[in-house]
């Protein structure tokens, strides 16, 4: 830990440590070297969120590297949450990228296993999976807190990163989900961002279990929200996205309104969720994944009553 008492001194860390209800966003880098396109997607998030997740070749589709896009955000005065998956890097590349990210001023990192390449646009590729997401968390923590690589060699200047992890409360087998969250916290996750939540009943149970296990006192849990744009999107997610739990009532609710109003109904549901998360024990904030809807984030943030974002020095 640095002299300031912060692990990385990121804005997200400061907001969470000050006890504010955090609000993070997400931005998928472009399928090209087009910086202008990246700026179009990230600028709407300025002053709307505490940090912006930069996805790492999500769904195994090749895009601009998350480290490069994160660095571009730093240069533009925005705070990235650099996502890193284990699918494409061995431990040499992982540790090198952690040092590189820190050197570029990136102060948050989200540790993920990564979607299998079978989903993506290069299913013929070889995967790596030298280490898994929980080992990645432990590696990042060891580098930062002990100043050592996996092999125990000393690092001349340790990276400064606030370490995040993902949790899917709806994955199977359900009995193990809170325990896997506990494993991530034990490994060193400073904050958690959950998978998109639609089944509020199941999420309440999951959070109750997390609170009962004492997990919420050891990390900051941000509840994942993705507004549905249409009943079609809800149907698709229910059927084709692994590990996603979309209740039939929600699909019915969206179908129940005129097609033109379905996006508004999706936003309304998201706003109701955010209101409940603000009150829910153990929930420290919301992670808004407005997929290809970055320009709607200011409106959603405004209506969710999370503006202005706190400034913590």
């Amino acid at each position, binding site marked *: 830990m640095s002299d300031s008492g912060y692990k990385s001194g990121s804005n997200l860390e400061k907001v969470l440590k000050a006890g504010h209800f955090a609000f993070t966003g997400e931005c998928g880098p472009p399928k090209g070297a087009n910086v202008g396109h990246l700026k179009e997607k990230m600028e709407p998030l300025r002053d709307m969120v505490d940090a912006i997740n930069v996805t790492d070749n999500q769904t195994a589709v090749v895009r601009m590297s998350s480290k490069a896009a994160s660095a571009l955000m730093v240069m533009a005065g925005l705070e990235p949450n650099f996502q890193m998956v*284990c*699918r494409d890097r061995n*431990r040499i590349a992982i540790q090198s990228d952690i040092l590189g990210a820190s050197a570029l001023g990136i102060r948050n990192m989200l540790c993920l*296993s*990564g*979607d*299998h390449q*079978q*989903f993506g646009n290069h299913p013929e590729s070889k*995967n790596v*999976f*030298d*280490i*898994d*997401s*929980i*080992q990645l968390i*432990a*590696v990042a923590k060891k580098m930062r807190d002990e100043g050592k690589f*996996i092999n125990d060699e000393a690092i001349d200047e340790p990276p400064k990163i606030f370490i995040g992890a*993902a*949790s*899917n409360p709806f*994955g*199977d*087998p359900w*009995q*193990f989900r809170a*325990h*896997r969250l*506990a*494993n991530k916290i*034990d*490994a060193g996750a400073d904050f958690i961002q959950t*998978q998109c939540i639609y089944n509020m009943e199941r999420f309440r149970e999951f959070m109750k279990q997390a609170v009962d296990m004492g997990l919420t006192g050891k990390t900051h849990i941000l509840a994942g929200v993705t507004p549905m744009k249409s009943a079609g999107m809800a149907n698709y997610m229910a059927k084709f996205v*692994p*590990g996603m739990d979309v209740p039939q009532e929600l699909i019915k609710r969206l179908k129940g309104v005129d097609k033109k109003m379905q996006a508004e109904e999706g936003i309304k549901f998201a706003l109701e969720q955010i209101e409940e998360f603000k009150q829910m024990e153990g929930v420290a904030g919301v992670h808004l994944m407005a997929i290809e809807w970055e320009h709607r984030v200011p409106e959603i943030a405004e209506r969710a009553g999370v503006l202005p974002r706190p400034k913590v020095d």
Partner: protein
Amino acid sequence: MIVADRKPLDEIQEMIKDYDKIMLVGCKGCVTVCNVGGLKEVQILASALRIGRKKDGRTLHVEERMLERQCDPEYIEQLRDSYDSVDAVLSMACGVGPQFLSETYPSQRFYPTVNTKFFGGAVQHGIWDERCAGCGTCVIHYFDGLCPIARCSKSLQHGPCGGSADGKCEISKETECIWDTIVKKKVDQGRLEDLRLYRAPKDWRTARDGGPRRSIREELVK
């Protein structure tokens, strides 16, 4: 055992299109057990190749041979008197066979007729599943005798990932999520706590990542 699939006939025909006389060598080891390279399969492939060639108005002479194993020089030697009487030799063994043949008889040309896939076993008649990745450092005792290195699509030592649904892996509804099985077994045995332990990154040097491997049994080496 080593499990393999027969290569498509047209691929094999393409390999041998310039030859009139070939030898087809089966193996009584794993490929016999997984019904891909035993006596019966040698006969079937030889017939198919002959018939295919006849359609082109040419004749293919196929000498059919069976070896006890193709992963042992002792049996490979049994072809010494005949290997060069043909234009090419096709092995129906796993990937080891054509290589042992090639190393023993440098002047001949050898071709594989199967795609060698994995270490596994028959889960039902006609269906074989992978069980072992040959990583060189067995850890299945941590996971109640089930191997996530071979059977988890991401080789996770701390699974299951968020893509596990209804006991299936995110890559396909046909693929079992082995982590689902591991967790359920631990739950049934009341030992879920075992899965709260942290496992250090694996040392892959004993796997293929450490380069081609060798196994030495000193007491047997002359």
